């Protein structure tokens, strides 16, 4: 399945947001996720299915002013 992840096209195996984070070796803390411009709440990572062509953003807090 192909998704746009943080602005780049990428082939993934994951079926859900939670899968994706595991595939990316990202602990599900200190980050937030949006799929197709909607935020996915942390409680829904396991159930939120990903589809081919999804646009996924995974963000964190960084220093700024």
């Amino acid at each position, binding site marked *: 399945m192909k998704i746009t992840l943080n602005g780049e096209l990428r082939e993934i195996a994951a079926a859900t947001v939670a899968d994706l984070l595991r595939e990316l070796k990202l602990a599900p803390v200190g980050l937030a996720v*949006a799929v197709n411009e909607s935020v996915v709440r942390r409680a829904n990572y396991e159930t939120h299915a990903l589809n081919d062509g999804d646009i996924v953003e995974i963000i964190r807090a960084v*220093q700024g002013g």
Partner: protein
Amino acid sequence: MNSKLTIDGVELGSRLLFGTGKNVSFDTMKECIELSGTDLVTCAIRRVPLNESSGQNLIDYLKNVRVLPNTAMCYNVKDAILTAQLGRELLDTNWVKLEVIGDADTLFPDNELTLEAAKILIKDGFTILPYCSDDLIVCQKLEQLGCAAVMPLAAPIGSGLGIRNPTNLQIIREKIKCPIIVDAGVGTASEAAFALELGMDGVLLQSAVYGAKIPQKMAVAMKSAVEAGRLAYEAGRMPKKLYGSASSPVEGVVNS
């Protein structure tokens, strides 16, 4: 000794709002935050880098302060809204420092788009602190939309030029009720004090501290400056005259 700043019902322990730094280690940042006395620090929201180990997490260094996510570098309403929503989810806060930028060189706000984004975000339950021009009409509209504060810039972001237009800030103060936080442009302590003396409710600092030769000293300087400025505002300064009057008695002088 001075009165507290309250935003959206939350009383803050300091009138200094503070960035989390740029080109500075988390340790220095943490030290500066503590020395500054701030209660509210901003952070940006950025994509997790996928090809590098993520290292330490900023949030772990911000345990004792309230964190205010911003929408810095967003150039349109859609990006600002998604960034705000991601920040809310990430940091478990409905406060957001709304920025919609209009020009990449100067980082001046696009006030028209900021108003549009603010309207949508307020409907979505956000508490908005918008970065904007020192423009009375824009500030009035933001207040009427229900923003929790307005954050006019004193000078371009990162310029350190100080309060470029005290007249505009004075007029905004006269005609606006909600808190006014000067965002951007303050470069040194006297300018922070001056902002408060103009009746501004707070200042947001970043480059002035982290860009100083000794950031820790400047953090303390700014803490004192903000207190000084607010107290002076509350004290009510002496009137100005072209020349004054003797400060020692004119009678009883020993003379020949």
